[in-house]
């Protein structure tokens, strides 16, 4: 016997708008003295920098313009595929001049999931900005990893032919490129998480 409980509606999203830095990254726009540091500046605060990979890229709108008034957030496991609530979260914005974001983090490991299936190494990435009525979510997988049996990628392959928008390209030792296209021929695959 199980209790039948009323399921309430989730509170709806609204756009984060153009001024999201005030609440989410105040120090980044020189609102200083309120919070010591902005949230999510380092995803693994206690780990050595030399163990990190760099993921870089831009977020392009439908006109091909690289955006800088957006916020990105990432969530990931450690190098052993383990999630822990104390680490693995990062929050970052593109540089206002180059329009590129840089995420310095551990390369996540293969994840042995609760249902017994293994997920390939990946990072969950979210994008919030003006013009987006809801936060968008996607995943970053890595070129060079075994992506053949990842459960989510299998679902994507079944509905779209191309999973390449979810795979970061290796452009140098420990450096990956992950551009995001909000619209157009190269529109990134977004997830209903």
């Amino acid at each position: 016997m199980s209790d039948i409980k009323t399921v309430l509606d989730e509170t709806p999203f609204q756009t984060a708008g153009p001024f999201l830095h005030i609440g989410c990254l105040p120090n980044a726009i020189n609102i200083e003295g309120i919070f010591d540091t902005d949230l999510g500046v380092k995803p693994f605060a206690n780990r050595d920098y030399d163990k990190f990979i760099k993921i870089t890229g831009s977020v392009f709108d439908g006109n091909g313009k690289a955006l800088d008034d957006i916020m990105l957030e990432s969530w990931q496991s450690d190098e052993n595929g383990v999630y822990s609530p104390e680490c693995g979260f990062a929050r970052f914005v593109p540089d206002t001049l180059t329009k590129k974001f840089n995420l310095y983090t551990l390369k996540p490991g293969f994840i042995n999931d609760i249902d017994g299936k293994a997920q390939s190494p990946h990072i969950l990435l979210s994008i919030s900005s003006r013009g987006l009525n809801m936060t968008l979510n996607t995943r970053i997988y890595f070129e060079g990893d075994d992506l053949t049996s990842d459960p989510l990628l299998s679902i994507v392959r079944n509905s779209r032919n191309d999973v390449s928008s979810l795979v970061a390209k290796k452009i140098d030792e420990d450096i990956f490129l992950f551009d995001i296209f909000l619209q157009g021929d190269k529109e990134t695959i977004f997830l209903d998480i």
Partner: protein
Amino acid sequence: MVEGLIKRNPKKHPQLNFPDYKSSCSRAPKNKKISFSSTSTEISGPVFNKNIIGKLDNDLTLNFSKNNTLPIGHKIIVFGRISDQFSNPIEGALIEIWQANAAGKYLHHNDNNTAPIDPNFAGCGRSITCSKGYYEFITIQPGPYPYPNRGIEWRPMHIHFSVFGKSFGQRLITQMYFEGDPLINSCPMVNSIPDEKAKQSLTSTLDTSRSNTQKLLSYKFDIILRGTNQTFFENRKEGL
């Protein structure tokens, strides 16, 4: 058994492509999102320690004031309860808010409105919910302001909310409106939500219970984050 986040109902959330909100036209993706069962990636999430919260982080009237000068405007309390879809309170949820000052001006280089900056108000605050799921902020009633959309339009008074529950899949960014504001009904961002009841859930309600003791009007804004369902595997044991 595995846990899974309850699927989002598209009618209860804004449409991404909503031409009445002009800047959605070049930013909203055109393809359908890919749906899948929750994995440990979405079920897990960052949890923040209460010790990151400073004493004045939830008092926007004091956390940027110079020489104890209060910001200009109508001081209010904004409070509420954070629960999941089964009404279970969420303890330890991090809430970040941001807003315009009483004149409708943001302390931000991209705000081109001619309204004045308040040197004692940043419009930035955060808090973590208590064991019963409650949060509270003291702030200034934000002003409405004009912005370019289909010509110049007016945003209703609002406060932006960013919320972290226990799962990254519960992550929510939204806006709270104020009961009785006549600008709510014509706001395209509000109207991008198809369901009427869902729209209304973003409007806080006036609460006068503390108007005598604290001489402040309060606005109550409850937030509901996604719940998780326990579902059986199909290959469950015989006889169960």
